[in-house]
């Protein structure tokens, strides 16, 4: 079973305890910036009076993990999408490709790495909740099994249809994510991406990449065949010319 978070923006008071706890749990340098960076993996932004947390959604089939040429980003069976800084070559394809704009880079360092929320993979492996969920005073960020969180989110919407927009963000975005969100106003108004495809994005490139072995075989044979035929044609032409020469 995989775990996740449910963030309910209607319950968030914007205290920022999650950001501070994240910094501490992950050994990130202060200060807490006003938007997510390679050093600040989660923030609470106030958008038109609504408090919205920014963090990685931990896709079921992460775009970042699929595009990484050296498999520095991987999805763990427990849910977190984690990052191995020792492998990373710094191509920044993850930053370019993530449909949610999550991974960030250390632009100010000569030896930079990527920074993004890792769903406190170490704590989760020990059976603990993420630091942000553990510290949240109102329960706006809830940690649990993803299936249970989906159920909880749907129950909340059903119980208070007037409070919530009738959509659990993350239930199908990019093929489904481990982090889910609820809101009282349309998600696009909160600066959340609503044009994200409902299918896992890695399929788009895998459709092409998976055909490469067959393509190489067929194309190779074709090229050799053309070479063979054109070469033989030249040989025959030369031979016939020589024949005509001797006949004369």
């Amino acid at each position, binding site marked *: 079973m995989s775990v996740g978070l449910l963030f309910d923006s209607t319950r968030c008071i914007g205290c920022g305890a999650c950001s501070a706890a994240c910094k501490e749990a992950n050994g990130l340098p202060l200060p807490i910036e006003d938007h997510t960076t390679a050093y600040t993996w989660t923030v609470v932004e106030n958008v038109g009076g609504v408090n919205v947390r920014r963090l990685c959604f931990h896709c079921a089939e992460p775009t970042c993990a699929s595009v*990484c*040429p050296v498999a520095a980003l991987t999805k763990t069976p427990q849910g977190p999408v984690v990052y191995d800084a020792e492998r990373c070559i710094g191509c920044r*394809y993850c930053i370019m490709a993530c449909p949610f704009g999550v991974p960030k880079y250390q632009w100010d*360092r000569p030896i930079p790495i990527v920074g993004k929320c890792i769903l406190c993979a170490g704590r989760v492996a020990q059976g603990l909740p993420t630091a942000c969920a553990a510290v949240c005073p109102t329960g706006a960020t809830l940690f649990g099994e993803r299936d249970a969180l989906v159920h909880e989110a749907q129950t909340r919407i059903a119980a208070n249809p007037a409070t919530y927009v009738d959509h659990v963000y993350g239930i199908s975005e990019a093929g489904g994510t481990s982090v889910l969100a609820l809101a009282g106003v349309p998600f696009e108004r909160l600066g959340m991406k609503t044009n994200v495809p409902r299918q896992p994005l890695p399929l788009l490139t895998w459709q092409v990449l998976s055909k490469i072995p067959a393509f190489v075989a067929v*194309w190779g044979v074709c*090229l050799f065949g053309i070479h063979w035929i054109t*070469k033989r044609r030249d040989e025959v032409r030369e031979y016939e010319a020589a024949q005509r020469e001797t006949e004369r």
Partner: protein
Amino acid sequence: MTVAVAVRRVVRRMGFWEAVLAVILVLFGGVTVLRFTRGLGAVTNLNDKFPWGLWIGFDVLCGVGLAAGAFTLTAIVHIFNLRRFEPIVRPTVLTGFLGYVLVIIGLLFDLGQPWRIWHALVFWNPHSVMFEVAWCVMLYTTVLGLEFAPVVFEGLRLERPRRLLRSVATPLVIIGVILSTLHQSSLGSLYLIVPSKLHPLWYTPLLPYLFLISAVGAGIGMTILESYLSERAFGRRLEMDLLEPLARAMVVALGVYGLLRVIVIWKNGAVALLRHPEYEGWMFLLELCVGVVLPVGLLLIERVRMNPTGLVVAAIFAVLGFVMNRLNVSVTGMEHAAGIQYVPSWMEVTVSLGLVALGFALFAVAVRYLPIFPQPARGRVG
């Protein structure tokens, strides 16, 4: 003799273009130091919203594409056995080889930790297009090196290794064509995964095919352009009898490409955006005009095609349009989703210009010391 005197003597003997080259290369050296001591943020205008800029859009996407003449020409000569094109194979393979070397140097600037470039060899992720790109760059640069090596061996009068490479020439060409097909298309595939970010005038599932076909067109354009520059710089004659049929092949490639582009925006509905074009719309129209309509239109006229100047002008348009396309895909088309405008810093531009300058310089050096052209060059180098 002191250094100062030597420098002054060299400077006095320089022509205009050598001086330009020297200035660019000096600035290039300075920026290189800054890049590796201060980091990417200090020299580029890249940021978390716009992580790929000029170095990917121009140095890599255009560098690889414009090197496509090499696989096209080697296929024509070795696979289709059209031996009469042999005289322009060497300079074209040299252009391709230098192009790939410069792409790798460009990548070393762009990668956050370039000393780890070998990681793709040991840490595999076959689901990543970038993984395919990395392997294609490495393997095809090796193949181009081996395809060009006989010229070096000939220059050094090393008969045995030359004969050895000659015996595997055909398999090498076949491997090179396969790798090129994969590599050119994979650069388009890089953008398949950003349907919500790349503007609909450029995003299409056909991106890998479009990148391949346009590279064939622009690669031929580069071959024509490079023949023209060689004529100017090294006092050679223009091989019109070879370039004119190549130009017709370019018309076919660009024609197919242009048609596909139109069909794509027709089918995905983006054509409606051209009725009242905004920034992206104008850039699209300009790109298609310069890169397809003008060169195809010009080259369809026999009088233009047969005329060296006409031919070269059309080739310049094709190459320019190709560069615009790659920059539109990597920059213009990504700006709206990023929510910001990206303009490269002067230091980014310096590095890109420096790489081009380096390419010209290395080509000139190679022509001077190696048997690149069939008969010895008459004019002065540079």
